């Protein structure tokens, strides 16, 4: 027994003795080198920077980045730890450099800045570039190259060339080549210059075009300033090539924006396509049901503040239920008494919309509420340097199509859908067959309203959530449904997408407001020409 304890103690001690040695292999150097930054002498600091750079420690990059921005400090207290600072109202919020541990707030007097001069800044910039050029993340590598575009010099080019030999990713290679070409553009050697123009002409980097433009500048008499004809023609061709590509990109972007606006319209209108299109009920409170959905998202996020990432997954079904139940209540409480009197329905539901608006104003506040966007929805998918498609819009497009498909399935494949279609085509006959038309009405209206609620969840990610948000969508939604042809879901899809794209195509030259006016007038005139929309219902159902 005694032996065993001795053995254990020996084991523990020997382990404890070994521990610092193994861990410190490349660790001990970093804090000690860091101490060197406390020196006043700038050239001594420069030496320390060089030493830090070659340690290969992952924390060095962050230290340099903060140092160049003047955010690297050390404590005056006995601990003299190095800290990163972030200014806040009370003073500085500090973070330990060694382990990223937040250390709370301190006053300005308690810390001392690590000072840098211009020479040191140049050195740091290069060091940062070098370190981030070797960063494992592809996008960070590319951003590092781009950062070097602004003041590219021989030293930078040397770094880039070195990286080019080991770089495996094409998109980083291309960016590096553009960087080198930007430097070569200033070369005296004509061949090198022409080559670099050629490379720049293939790139969509804004810096490439900006560098080429001075070459094709004109004087007051509309003659080119550049004398060298070969270089001039090459530059003109290169700029033209970039511009052609940019134009193409612009179109792609416009279409993408148009489709995403179209999806928003589709989401807003599709519930209405059910209540108005299938049931013939004019629901002016539709916009407010969208608003209810958006507020449900807000409440769900309040209830689960630690799980914003998943909040939308909870919000979608809750918004559907919430808006659906309110919709059923509206149908059973008011609309039921007004079937066959469309204008009265319009007025009564308008009254409901006013009440819902005021209710939200009283319960929450007249002010807009902000709904958080989950991490996975932010960011953009970069197709090339000039065209980036934001994820949020992409998800909205996909989401609206999914909702559309689901709705289509419900109407075509379920027994509820069958009943809905039967009642909408011939109510008396459907009743004679034993369909409870009242129940079907309530369910249909609930379905349309629930989808409005889902639309609200999507819209909460794009716009402000406020008591008036429903108003903004009601006219648009009606326009989409009427334009597409009442009672035709596919018509609604086509109408929403085409109106979205038309709007975005008009916007650049007409402005947002005028584009909207033009679209409205277009629809007004279109309805005169084809009163039943793009895809009118045919046959008996169309009679009344």
């Amino acid at each position, binding site marked *: 027994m005694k032996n065993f304890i001795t053995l254990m103690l020996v084991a523990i001690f020997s382990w404890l003795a070994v521990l610092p040695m193994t861990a410190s292999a490349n660790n001990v150097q970093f804090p000690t080198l860091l101490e060197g930054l406390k020196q006043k002498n700038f050239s001594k600091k420069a030496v320390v920077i060089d030493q830090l750079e070659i340690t290969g420690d992952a924390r060095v990059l962050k230290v340099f980045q903060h140092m160049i921005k003047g955010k690297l400090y050390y404590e005056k207290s006995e601990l003299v730890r190095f800290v990163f600072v972030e200014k806040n109202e009370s003073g500085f919020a500090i973070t330990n450099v060694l382990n990223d541990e937040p250390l709370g707030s301190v006053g300005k007097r308690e810390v001392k800045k690590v000072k840098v001069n211009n020479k040191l800044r140049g050195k740091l910039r290069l060091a940062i570039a070098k370190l981030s050029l070797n960063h494992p993340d592809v996008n960070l590598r590319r951003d590092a190259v781009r950062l070097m575009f602004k003041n590219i010099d021989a030293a930078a080019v040397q770094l880039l060339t070195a990286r080019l030999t080991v770089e495996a990713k094409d998109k980083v290679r291309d960016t590096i080549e553009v960087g080198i070409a930007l430097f070569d553009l200033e070369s005296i050697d004509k061949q090198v210059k022409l080559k670099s123009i050629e490379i720049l002409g293939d790139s969509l980097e804004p810096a490439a075009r900006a560098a080429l433009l001075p070459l094709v500048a004109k004087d007051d008499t509309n003659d080119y300033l550049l004398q060298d004809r070969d270089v001039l023609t090459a530059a003109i061709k290169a700029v033209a090539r970039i511009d052609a590509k940019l134009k193409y990109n612009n179109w792609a972007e416009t279409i993408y924006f148009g489709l995403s606006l179209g999806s928003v319209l589709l989401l807003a209108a599709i519930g209405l396509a059910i209540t108005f299109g299938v049931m013939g009920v*004019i629901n002016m409170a539709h916009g407010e049901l969208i608003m209810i959905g958006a507020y449900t998202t807000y409440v769900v996020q309040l209830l689960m503040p630690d799980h914003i990432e998943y909040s939308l997954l909870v919000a979608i079904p809750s918004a559907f239920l919430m808006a659906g139940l309110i919709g059923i209540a509206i149908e059973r409480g008011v609309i039921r008494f007004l079937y066959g009197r469309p*204008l009265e329905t319009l007025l009564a539901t308008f009254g409901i919309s006013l009440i819902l608006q005021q209710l939200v104003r009283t319960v929450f506040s007249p002010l807009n509420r902000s709904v958080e966007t989950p991490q996975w929805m932010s960011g953009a998918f970069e197709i090339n340097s000039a065209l980036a498609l934001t994820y949020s819009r992409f998800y909205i497009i996909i989401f609206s199509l999914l909702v559309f498909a689901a709705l289509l399935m419900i109407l075509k494949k379920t027994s509820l859908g069958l009943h809905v279609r039967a009642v909408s085509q011939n109510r008396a006959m459907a009743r004679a067959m034993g369909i409870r038309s009242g129940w079907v009405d309530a369910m249909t209206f609930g379905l349309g309203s629930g989808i409005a609620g889902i639309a609200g969840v999507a819209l909460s990610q794009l716009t402000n959530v406020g008591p008036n948000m429903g108003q903004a969508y009601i006219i648009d939604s009606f326009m989409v449904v009427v334009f597409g042809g009442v009672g035709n879901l596919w018509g609604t899809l086509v109408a929403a997408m085409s109106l979205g794209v038309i709007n975005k195509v008009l916007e650049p030259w007409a402005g947002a407001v005028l584009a909207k*006016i033009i679209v409205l007038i277009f629809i007004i005139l279109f309805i005169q020409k084809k*009163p039943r929309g793009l895809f009118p219902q045919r046959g008996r159902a169309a009679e009344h």
Partner: protein
Amino acid sequence: MENRSFVMNLLANDNAARWFLSTLFMLGIVVPFCNLMVPQDSIFHVSSYTVTLLGKYLSYALLAIALDLVWGYCGILSLGHAAFFALGGYAMGMYLMRQIGDRGVYGNPDLPDFMVFLNWDTLPWYWQGFDMFWFAMLMALLVPAALAYVFGWLAFRSRVTGVYLSIITQALTFALLLAFFRNEMGFGGNNGLTDFKEILGFSLQSDTTRAGLFVFTVIFLALGYLVSRYVVSSKMGRVVVAIRDAEDRTRFVGYKVESFKLWIWVFSAMLAGIAGALYTPQVGIINPGEFSPLNSIELVVWVAVGGRGTLIGAVIGAVVVNFAKTFFTAAAPEVWLFFLGGLFIFVTIFMPNGIMGLVKGFSEKRAARLARQSPSEVRS
């Protein structure tokens, strides 16, 4: 003389109309008198604020008559009638703007302040002529009429009816709202037209002018009522009612439905334009908010509350609802929208014929009771 007997003929056997006109007549005399002649501390004194408020209600009442003509009598539910009202208001506003002359903040004799602010150096062509009162008033009639004519001609000819028509009228006023919000339109953008000084040389701040404007509003409301009364009781009016009740049958009988609809639509737009022109000088501002779809739809509820298809009902509805609005927005602002919303629902479900429907039902019951009683009296 001729005219007088004509009015008498029109009002024969119509007690309600005679009551209504005499009330208006009394209002037109008593209110200005109590405002100008009765000393301030007397309980009979009517403050200038009240005079302006009443004037506003009465110009709304004229607007309500205009909507009632198309909705109550012709079955066209317009959700954009406030657009015609606002256009009339803007025409008057433009005249009043020009009357400011060089008394604006920038002291420019030719350009209104907002144009100086936008760095414009000449008056846009469509502002020409608005320094003349008669021209501005003509425009207050013609601009709404022209818009109504173009819109109606397109809509009625292609037989856009029912809710479709309602929705595109709403789109129309929404498009105008967006357009008038633009500074480039040259109508003062967001702020609209305001800071008026005088009308026809009379200061708009003086009590006498306000009382005068009130009297004019009363006169125009009475005239508007009489002309509308004549229109709906004429042969044309009866065709219009027939269109409301059975559009297809009327067409098959041989009437050109589109022309009748267009006529009453344009006439109604002109009435709305007059109402707008009366409204602007009394309220002292006209801005794009008047085009908002909510205004048009509120107007619909006035008529619904009063009772559509009765011109007096429209007037009563406009006054009652607006009185309630003034009361609630001062006393309990958050209750107002609940009240308005509830009113929409209550009236459509329980009171489809509005206040006038209740009155009529009541008087019919009384007549029936009298009819039951009188034979027994004869017998005994």
